[in-house]
């Protein structure tokens, strides 16, 4: 009986002590972690939209972006979906008139290195600059895109390329409908 009381006391004390230490450490590190997240988001938005000075969240996945004088310069949409091997997370820039994409940036992906992972390479992402938002984007294989709603899929990584296109179409078209 005595032994079991001792067990309970010791384990409870260890648990309380551990909890206390972690609360203290969390208070110290939480602001830093939040700051890192904020910085990552900022850096990403600056890459997909030109001349952004400030931005504010206006929807679940939408950020309104403003230039130095406070004029609306465009929108940054956070988009995510399933790729070939796992989740692909992106940010898509759309201009203030909501007619054109200003760029995309792949934030997270676990596609095959050397193949699907090329969706995060500038050569692929730059293709989305200036595409229209008036209709769904399409991909073409083994030829140069001819219109402003086409991109060229990565050779040997059609699934990854298609995933990116689908994720963007879902997010952008869904968002345009709500407005």
């Amino acid at each position, binding site marked *: 009986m005595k*032994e*079991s009381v*001792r*067990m309970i006391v*010791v*384990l409870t004390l*260890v*648990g309380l002590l*551990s909890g206390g*230490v*972690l609360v203290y*450490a*969390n208070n110290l*590190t939480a602001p*830093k*972690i939040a700051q*890192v997240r904020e910085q*990552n988001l900022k850096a990403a938005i600056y890459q997909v939209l030109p001349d952004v000075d400030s931005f504010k969240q206006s929807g679940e996945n939408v950020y309104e972006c403003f230039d130095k004088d406070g004029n609306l310069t465009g929108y940054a949409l956070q988009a995510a979906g399933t790729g070939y091997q796992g989740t692909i997370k992106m940010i898509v820039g759309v201009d203030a008139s909501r007619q054109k994409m200003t760029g995309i940036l792949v934030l*997270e992906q676990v596609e*095959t*290195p*050397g*193949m699907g992972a090329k969706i995060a390479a500038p050569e692929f992402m730059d293709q989305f600059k200036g595409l229209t938002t008036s209709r769904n984007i399409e991909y073409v294989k083994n030829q140069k895109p001819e219109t402003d709603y086409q991109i060229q899929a990565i050779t040997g990584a059609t699934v990854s390329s298609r995933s990116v296109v689908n994720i963007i179409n879902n997010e952008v078209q869904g968002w345009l409908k709500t407005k």
Partner: protein
Amino acid sequence: MAENKVTLWYDFAKGLWDESPTFRQLLGMCPTLAVTNIAINGLAMGLATSFVLICSSVVVSMVRSLVPAGVRIPVYVVIIATFVTLADMFMAGNFPVISKALGPYVPLIVVNCIILGRAEAFASRNNVGRSFIDALGMGVGFSLALTVLGSVRELLGNGSVFGARILGSWFEPWVIMILPGGAFITLGLMIGGINMLRNRKKKPAPACEV
């Protein structure tokens, strides 16, 4: 005194070679295989694990006489989990890129058998000083193994080590090496190579015994 020094040196050095957690004990295989696609990830994982290993070994050794045998494993696990959470928070705040690359494998240090193994097999039976040295040796051994593994895979799979390009543009990267398969191939060959070295050294001994 001299004897004491020898013991301490042995406590440290056994983690590097004779009882290397990766190559001899084959413990902690999950992070070993999963995060060593490039050298820096291997090193970071090794250092994070070493931090947890050293801190928890010291604390376990300090409280070893106070903890009733019946609840010693839960107590060790709480101690280990505390240090893992600390390491996770620290890395997320200060090294976000590496923290992201290691992903779920940092919280999973909790279930790394090396740490609970050293707590149970060594720290709970020895004084704080020896437990510290033992954990340090195991930590260095683990970090070293992961860094070497990561370097080999990065060199063959990407032509670079620690991000610095070593093989020129003539080199066609073996993509398999930075994929999961490359981890098994590299680790298997390294363990085989080390066993071969050890067997070669041992050969004269059995001849005398017979």
